[in-house]
């Protein structure tokens, strides 16, 4: 083997090694979010966490794929279903949990709760409780970035329900008109609380409608973290090039009810079960040739031990 060939082989091995490490990180982040939310369920049932709590179990690929593709200087505005976004942004799990427990050590000093996580140091401008209410604010953050010409963007996450609100359409129009560096990420989990997509939208191809404002828009499999990450990187590039906003529709599914007090009577259990077969965590693990996948992979570990340490992860051994 020539020296040149050896160098080439080393480089591809490095690349493969780097890719494996990266996927492990994605997997770890998703599992971490899932474990965190399972703990939330438990604490809510015990009455420790009160109020509205909206879980993103099943939608972890969105949190991890989108947030990982942004830089730390980009601004993030999101919804009330934002535990995953907050954790993926790097807000310590202790402060998120403390917030939900109403403590002064919470990331919003106990004033916000589950729906209003903030960390301006990480440019995380909050979970917003009014559907679509965060969109205009994100446009304003993008406007400031634009006026400063600093190369940053604002990313706004919202659901399919928000797409029906006037605030979405006002914001999409304004951002396209002013060519704002705004990344619009629609986390389409097919239900606006209990109303299915087809019963709230005359045209359910959301990406096509967004494109009508004159922005680049496309739909992505939101259960595939690698696809989400790839699409977000590409969309962020387009936004940074200065051609105005970009729209991503991430098709995903929540495995649990809308909130902790939702009897979930509007969905067919078989439908939920079908989507569970596309669990983003299992999907990635399978692709990484990780250990055989149980239905609830990885096996449940004691949640209390998880809660004790911030960095505790359930990294796969494979």
């Amino acid at each position, binding site marked *: 083997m020539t020296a040149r060939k050896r160098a080439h082989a080393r480089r591809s091995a490095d690349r493969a090694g780097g890719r494996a490490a990266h996927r492990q990180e994605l997997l770890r982040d998703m599992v971490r979010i899932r474990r965190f939310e399972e703990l939330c369920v438990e604490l809510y049932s015990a009455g420790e966490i009160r109020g509205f709590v909206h879980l993103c179990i099943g939608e972890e690929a969105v949190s991890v794929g989108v947030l990982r593709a942004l830089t730390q200087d980009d*601004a993030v*505005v999101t919804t009330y279903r934002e535990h995953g976004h907050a954790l993926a942004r790097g807000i310590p799990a202790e402060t998120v949990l403390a917030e939900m427990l109403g403590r002064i050590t*919470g*990331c*919003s*000093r*106990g*004033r*916000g709760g589950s729906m*209003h996580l*903030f*960390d*301006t140091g990480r440019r995380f*401008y*909050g979970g*917003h*409780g*009014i559907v679509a*209410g965060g*969109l*205009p*604010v*994100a*446009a*304003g*953050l*993008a*406007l*400031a*970035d634009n*006026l400063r010409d600093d190369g940053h963007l*604002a990313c706004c996450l919202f659901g399919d329900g928000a797409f029906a609100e*006037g*605030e979405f359409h*006002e*914001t999409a*129009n*304004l951002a396209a*008109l*002013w060519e704002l560096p705004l990344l619009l990420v629609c986390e389409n989990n097919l239900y606006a609380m209990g109303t299915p997509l087809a019963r709230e939208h005359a045209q359910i191809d959301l990406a096509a409608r967004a494109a009508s404002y004159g922005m680049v828009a496309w739909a992505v499999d939101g259960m595939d973290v690698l696809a989400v990450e790839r699409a977000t990187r590409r969309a962020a590039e387009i936004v940074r090039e200065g051609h105005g906003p970009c729209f991503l529709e991430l098709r995903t599914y929540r495995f649990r009810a809308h909130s902790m007090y939702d009897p979930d009577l509007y969905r067919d259990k078989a439908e939920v079960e079908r989507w569970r077969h596309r669990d983003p965590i299992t999907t990635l693990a399978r692709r990484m040739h990780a250990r055989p996948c149980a239905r609830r992979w990885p096996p449940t570990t004691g949640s209390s031990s998880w809660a004790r340490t911030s960095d505790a992860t359930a990294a796969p051994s494979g």
Partner: protein
Amino acid sequence: MGEDVGRYGGAFGVSLGLLDEFGPDRVRDTPLSESAFVGAGIGAAIAGMRPIVEIMTVNFSLLALDQILNNAATLLHMSGGQVAVPLVIRMTTGAGRQLAAQHSHSLEGWYAHIPGIRVLAPATVADARHMLAPALADPDPVVIFEHGSLYNASGSPEPDGAPADLDSAAVRRSGTAVSLITYGGSLGKVLEAAERLAADGIDAEVVDLRTLRPLDDDTVIGSVRRTHRAVVADEGWRTGGISAEIAARIAEQAFYDLDAPVERVCAAEVPVPYAHQLEEAALPQVAGILAAVRRAVG
């Protein structure tokens, strides 16, 4: 930024010439999207800008109420003190120009209900000129209500006068017999009533609230303690209005100084009508203020 603030110069000419002077980056015409551009003002303020948003009239502000109430007024608290919103929102308020029911509201009392924002109502040219700079310097959102009938008032404020004090009400006329408490577009009517009362030997004090939130209790209560009688005049509807709040505070803090029930002169509880004589009848007028004072003074 706002609707028609740039090329048009503002629906009431308030921003005339600013586009030429400051350019399109700083003077921005917006689409007719109150929620989006007020929210964009909030976002820009969060990011460290000092935006002034003009909403053409208070009735259109209802389309942006979600942004004003749920975001501008709330984010600082809800984020545990992390997200300050140094935003100024200006809007036209009030009736009296035969603009009929959908363009004649006085909803500043509603806004004064909301913790987290400061609500200003300039009644004089000097206040209109000098409240803006301290409002911009305020780290929290400030909403300024400009009464439509005052846009044609003229005066010569000092061009570099001191920034107005945003915390205090002003005694516009000193008196001993009764306190007339008002603000904004009603101040002129109240001062006129005070002059007529003086001719009858009734020495009325006139308090201009200037800031509707936070209310300057000290000035209002101090005045009532001196005169022992109070008449509140404003263009809002009587039920649950700002005048109700003033009357309640007087009852709470100066009950034992009162020598007569607090009187209120408010708009009739109907949508504001179009026809001139009907509109006149629906709004507080000098005659109504005089009658209320005579009841109070007895």
